[in-house]
């Protein structure tokens, strides 16, 4: 009688880890168990962790990505693991440096977009009245503006200024959809009994928003952040490929841009354009895996019940 109604009414809210014993060690153990519950989550986290480690420490270990050498357009070899570019730069060193650049742009733009959507979505939903009307109008306007053309227009306007401008442009065009979702969720949460109860004992409004409402939206916010990172990295790659990003910044998109300009595709230098393209695809897939995995873990109804392969073979073996 106890748990079933709770999970059915509030699928996003109840954390799966048992909260019976405190302490950071217990928390870490709970998080680890949660991670292992879904194979998608485990694989996604493993890939993302690898990317983050490469971005953090890779540039310290690999060579200077801008250094020129006499080996022009060489295929992969022992000296150059991923070959060289037309001007003799090491593709592997460039890929490592670009990983850091792309991840920074993706994470920063997604953080900014999520922060804006939280303020506008939850603020409007909770305040109601004319404030909600105004904030809804703003997000609707940003929602109907076609995204990529706007990005291109703004990016060409602030062209070449810096990575910060790219981050700002991407954040500006990607917050609106999540703001609407958060507004709807806040509208539903603010009339819940526990929020009414907090009003009854005279809790301050900012506390009601931050302490009573926000924690119940964390699952939504996390999944929106994940998709915002994917969107930001793809948009950045698109902008760079079109030549609208700061060309001195090392990103996967810029690598593709230079490869395209040097006619790497027609020249058959596959080692130049395949690695950055593959990185974008794998990184996006890993983030999607995390998002789906989190859904699976947080919402028991989405969990796929498949018997473990090891156990299944064992039972087969005994039957024979």
């Amino acid at each position, binding site marked *: *009688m*106890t*748990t079933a*109604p*709770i*999970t059915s*009414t*509030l699928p996003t*809210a*109840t*954390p799966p880890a048992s*909260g*019976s*014993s*405190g302490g950071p060690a217990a928390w870490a153990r709970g998080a680890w168990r949660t991670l292992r519950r879904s194979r998608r989550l485990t694989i996604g986290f493993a890939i993302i962790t690898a990317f983050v480690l490469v971005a953090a420490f890779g540039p310290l270990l690999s060579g200077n990505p801008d250094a020129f050498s006499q080996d022009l357009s060489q295929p992969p070899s022992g000296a150059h693991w991923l070959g060289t570019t037309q001007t003799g730069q090491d593709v592997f060193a460039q890929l490592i440096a670009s990983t850091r650049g792309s991840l920074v742009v993706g994470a920063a733009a997604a953080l900014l977009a999520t922060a804006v959507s939280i303020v506008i979505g939850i603020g409007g939903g909770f305040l109601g009245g004319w404030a909600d009307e105004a904030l809804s109008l703003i997000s609707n306007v940003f929602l109907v503006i076609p995204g990529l053309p706007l990005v291109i227009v703004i990016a060409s306007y602030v062209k070449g200024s810096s990575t910060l401008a790219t981050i700002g442009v991407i954040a500006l065009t990607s917050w609106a959809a999540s703001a609407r979702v958060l507004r709807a969720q806040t509208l539903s949460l603010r009339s*819940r*009994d*526990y929020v*009414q*109860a*907090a*009003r*009854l*004992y*005279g*809790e*301050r409004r900012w506390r009601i928003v931050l*302490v*009573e409402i926000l*924690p*119940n939206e*964390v699952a939504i916010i996390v999944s929106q952040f994940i998709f915002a990172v994917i969107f930001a990295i793809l948009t950045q790659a698109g902008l760079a490929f079109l030549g609208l990003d700061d060309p001195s910044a090392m990103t996967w998109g810029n690598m593709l841009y230079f490869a395209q300009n040097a006619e790497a595709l027609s020249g058959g230098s596959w080692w130049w354009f395949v690695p950055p393209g593959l990185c974008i695809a794998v990184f996006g897939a890993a983030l999607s895996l995390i998002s789906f995995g989190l859904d699976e873990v947080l919402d028991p109804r989405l969990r796929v019940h498949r018997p473990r392969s090891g156990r299944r073979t064992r039972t087969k073996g005994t039957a024979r």
Partner: protein
Amino acid sequence: MTALEVRDLVVEYAQSRGKPFRAVEKLSFTLEAGRTLALVGESGSGKSSVLKALSRLVTPAGGQILLGGRDKVPAKEYRRAVQMVFQDPFASLNPSHSVDHHLRRPLLATGRARRGTEADTAVAELLRQVNLTPAADVARKRPHELSGGQRQRVAIARALAPAPDVLLADEPVSMLDVSIRLEILNLLDDLKRQRDLALLYVTHDLATARHFSSDIMVMYRGQVVERGPSDEVILNPKHPYTQLLAAAAPRTGATRAEVRAARQVRAAARSARDAERRETVVGDGCRFRPRCPFAMDVCATRPPEAALGGGHRVLCWLQSEGKAAA
């Protein structure tokens, strides 16, 4: 001592077109410290609107709510003095916070305890008062780890944390298992006695209303149609609506004939309700007229309040005409 006095309370809700909908019509009553007043009536009779107005979640369209004899008490003082237990214990606790948080916040927000050990002991004391022990274990738990009855105890403890004078209980046991209803009601009754609380008990259940409250008000369509000492109202109902309610309450140990009769009463009530839906405009007269088995011509005008002695009062023409019909 009068803890809360309500005079001519009117609650209205804005409608998308036309006049606002009047959910509560000029309601007056008092809540006495250490006594329980039951508010009974069917769904849509305005019980919840009364509670929302008393808890200041909606602003009344008219009338006065006097706390300790004073009108327009400042919000901070009122928030401390009037608390509420919600109907659904599965919705009234925040799933992302521990039991400790639910009790600590009202203590701190109303200034009943200071941060640190003082709040710790106050939380433990509250949990002990609602019989949730061991307090330290329960305080660490999240709502989803508790049963419905335990959750409702936490909700009661939260309502008690600001040390209120008035406790509003919105059908506190209707969502609970039958086996624990009595425990929760007894708990409320004990707490009322210990803390000298004025309790407003809103319910559908006439049996518990009679058992746990000293007085009963019967609401129909925003008006109190009958009020008085609980035994009087339940055992000797004068208003046709109260009679209908009392007849609708199921009884164990009823004979076959009684069950059959009860079923006929229910069928009649249902057809009457359907007829009432067709005839929505009642005008100025008695609001129960379309469903009333004793409806007369005079019922088209507003019925007077007839006093039957002992505080038993009825809003019905039947009782005002020289008690001939009674």
